[in-house]
């Protein structure tokens, strides 16, 4: 692919808190569909996006059990995005900031997510066509 890009996304927001994480994953989805090589540096609360211990739950207000509710688990979105990238000839290198993981106890991550440091982010950015930082805002 002549116009194949490499993009880096630096994320900060945890899941289930605002629409930024949803939007970030949508942008990554577009890049994955284009077969781009994608780097994700998950910093601070965003390490919980790929947290393997997430569990679905029923919802009494909706009157639905666990299966019917089919609650969004961001760990499944991360896995789906990785598969989508591979299906289109790209890949996602997802790095969770190790110190952010430790201080939150978010040690378990879905397959394909690796532990790293800001040095990985620097390397990612230096080898990318561009970098998008989606930062937490107050």
């Amino acid at each position, binding site marked *: 692919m002549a116009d194949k890009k490499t993009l880096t996304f630096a994320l900060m927001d945890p*899941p*289930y*808190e*605002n*629409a930024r*994480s*949803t939007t970030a*994953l*949508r942008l990554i*989805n577009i890049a*994955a569909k284009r077969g781009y090589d994608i780097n994700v540096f998950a910093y601070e609360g965003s390490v919980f996006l790929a947290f393997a211990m997430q569990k679905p739950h029923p*919802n*009494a*207000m*909706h009157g*639905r059990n666990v299966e*019917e*509710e*089919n*609650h*969004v688990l*961001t760990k*499944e*979105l991360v896995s*789906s*995005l990785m*598969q*989508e990238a591979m*299906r289109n000839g790209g890949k996602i290198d997802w790095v969770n900031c190790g110190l952010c993981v430790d201080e939150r106890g978010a040690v378990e991550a879905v397959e394909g997510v690796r532990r790293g440091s800001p040095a990985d982010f620097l390397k990612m950015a230096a080898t990318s066509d561009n970098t998008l930082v989606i930062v937490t805002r107050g």
Partner: protein
Amino acid sequence: MKALNIIETGYRATLEEQDDPGVWLAYTLKAAGADVDVLLRGNAVNYAVKDQDAGGLQYGAWRQTQPPRLAENIASLTSKGMAVFIVSEDLQERGLGGVPLIESLTPVTRNGIARLLGNYDQVWHW
């Protein structure tokens, strides 16, 4: 104890949560026996708009099967006996004055909010 649950920030994480946590909390507390009403203000007044559709979210092969249905969720509050107030000026400013809203809402003007708060022992502003 009578409490008013004010919901101001609309669509904060609704796609991931598949509802609004403030609305969900009000519903759950009511089901547990609490005496709670709700006031929609700011961007959250959009929750009352009937014709909204958040469906279609997809990441790779993953598709959301139960998108948030916020108007239905608000309607479920009134069906449980909760009063749901909505700030008229916030609707007007957003061009929602003539848009079909769910029924059973109680409009309140900004000038009427202070009087409304006086009817409650506690006010929880989300």
